[in-house]
């Protein structure tokens, strides 16, 4: 009797759980679904019924209107790709190198240097925006993509992550045997250490790439030349007056900026979720 009532209450709990989880899942999908569907619907259709759950036939028209104005997804894509790839490469490679320096060698300033990295880990980046802008203005780097790429070489949080990873996985015997074989230190790092660090580098690369792809603040203050716009700045054009009544085109423009992220996310979601979880455990 008691057993039975327990199964009943457990089934009720489970039903509540599934209902809420499915509701939240729909909440995640719904905005993007409406966006993708409305990208194929005409302005008149959208004005009649703003929610269309099925695609319509106006994709080409919307595309023509969208591309006929200031919004250029190809330029945005190209610049975002340059910035994100460059920044990710710089951040991952040099954070690994710095992490390795902190683990493999014993030097006098090693501990102070690590303490320093821990101290600046949480300093918010946007705080120094004004000084950064003035500095870039003086060296004539406004409207250049370099100030969006180069600062990534110093990413304290990733150095910390790489250090922890190396401490957990690297045996210094490998380094010693490479030395006996006559390998130079830099060669050892590139040919022996980097391959060991691949899993950590891959996780960090995904998040760095997405971070730089989505970054708005610094590009917004630096880039005024439309040919240098990154994707998030390009998107802001859709908010302007020229697209005011072109609902279908606005949804299409938004869809185009989201599509690459969706593809990457659903291909790598397993690693991304695992990577987020890993971030919690490093504490």
């Amino acid at each position, binding site marked *: 009797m008691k057993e039975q009532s327990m199964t009943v209450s*457990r089934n009720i709990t489970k039903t509540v*759980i599934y209902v809420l*989880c499915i509701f*939240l*899942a729909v909440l*995640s999908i719904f905005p993007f679904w409406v*966006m993708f569907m409305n990208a194929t619907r005409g302005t008149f259709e*959208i004005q009649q019924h*703003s*929610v269309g759950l099925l695609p319509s036939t106006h994709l080409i028209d919307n595309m023509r209107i969208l591309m006929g104005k200031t919004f250029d997804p190809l330029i945005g894509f190209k610049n975002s790709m340059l910035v994100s790839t460059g920044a990710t490469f710089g951040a991952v490679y*040099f954070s690994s*190198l*710095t992490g390795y*320096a*902190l683990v*493999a*060698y014993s*030097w*006098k*300033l090693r501990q102070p*240097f690590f303490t320093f990295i821990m101290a600046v880990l*949480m300093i*918010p980046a*946007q*705080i*120094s*925006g*004004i*000084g*950064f*802008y*003035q*500095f870039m*203005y003086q060296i004539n780097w406004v409207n250049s993509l370099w100030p969006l790429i*180069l*600062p990534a*070489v*110093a990413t304290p949080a990733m150095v910390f992550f790489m250090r922890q990873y190396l401490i957990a996985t690297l045996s210094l015997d490998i380094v010693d045997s490479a030395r006996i074989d006559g390998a130079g230190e830099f060669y050892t790092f590139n040919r022996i250490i980097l391959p060991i660090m691949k899993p950590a580098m891959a996780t960090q690369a995904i998040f760095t790439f997405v971070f730089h*792809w*989505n970054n*708005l*603040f610094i590009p*917004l203050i630096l880039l005024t030349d439309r040919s240098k716009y990154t*994707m*998030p700045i390009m*998107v*802001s054009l859709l*908010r302007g007056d020229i697209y005011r009544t072109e*609902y279908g085109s606005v949804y299409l423009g*938004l869809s185009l*900026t989201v599509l690459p*992220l969706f593809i990457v*996310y659903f291909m790598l*979601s397993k690693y*991304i*979720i695992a990577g987020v*979880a890993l971030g*919690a*455990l490093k*504490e």
Partner: protein
Amino acid sequence: MLARTRTISYAKYGYLFSIPFVLTFLIFHLYPMIYTVVIGFTDLRGIGRTEINFLENPFENFRLIFNNATFRRAMNNTFLIWIMNFIPQMLVALLLTAWFTNRNLTVRGQGMFKVLFYMPNIITAATIAILFQSLFGYPKGPINDVFLTFGWIESPLNFHLQHWTARGVVAFIQFWMWYGHTMIILIAGVLGINPTLFEAAEIDGATATQIFFRITLPRLKTIVLYTLVTSMIGGMQMFDIPRMFLWGGPDNATLTATLFIYNQAFSGSYLYNRAAAASILLFLIIAVLSSILFFVMRDRGAEKLKRKQRQLKRSEKAARKGVVL
């Protein structure tokens, strides 16, 4: 000769390999930070000016910003919107964590749910803000359509025109983008707890609720604190969503601190000195709030234990000394 080769020092490579990081940090992070502080004490305003002078009263900019009603309003908004998003975010994440890690329930499809809940987090915030601006459109818009169809409202709501609905939508977007992230971190935290603790509790006949509140939650304290502090630091700098959603409107109701700084410097008035002063004030506020959180949430139990251990050691030492004497 032999002795020298044996004691080759590799220490220089430690310095050598850190050079790129250190140089980049000094040039692109530390220098702009110091420069921002310096600008805060000067008369730097207007486009294209490079010559700057320190003010007669060095704290003039800070005084002006501190007494600026719009800055105060922006700080208020930032804090309000952060709280409005963080409390539900933490509660939902904790609830889902409790369910997903409950050993008696085995919720199916967890992998898929995690993927879907986390999804909004990696999408460009600028895009999401504009998307939601369209979704909450007035008088015709997807959300108004849905609400009317379900009969939740009688006439279309103009979400963009009222203070609290505008703030509410911004807070909702933040909640929606971040609860999945928080949930995954909390679940990872629970999986890191020694499973024998749960087994022992089950053998003792503890219910799932008791286990969650007596074992899981206390053990998660560090991770909850970590989430709280990172969320606060991020929340105080909230920029993308309010900027793209309604540009801080209506009537500055969604104007956040970083948006205020941006407006001071980059939307026509070029008040770089005021913007720099506001940045530094914001930084100090974030630093103070973080310290308060760390202090309030510090592990009192562990501290007590440490103090006791220290006392024990001291008395041991004293005892040993006594013996020697």
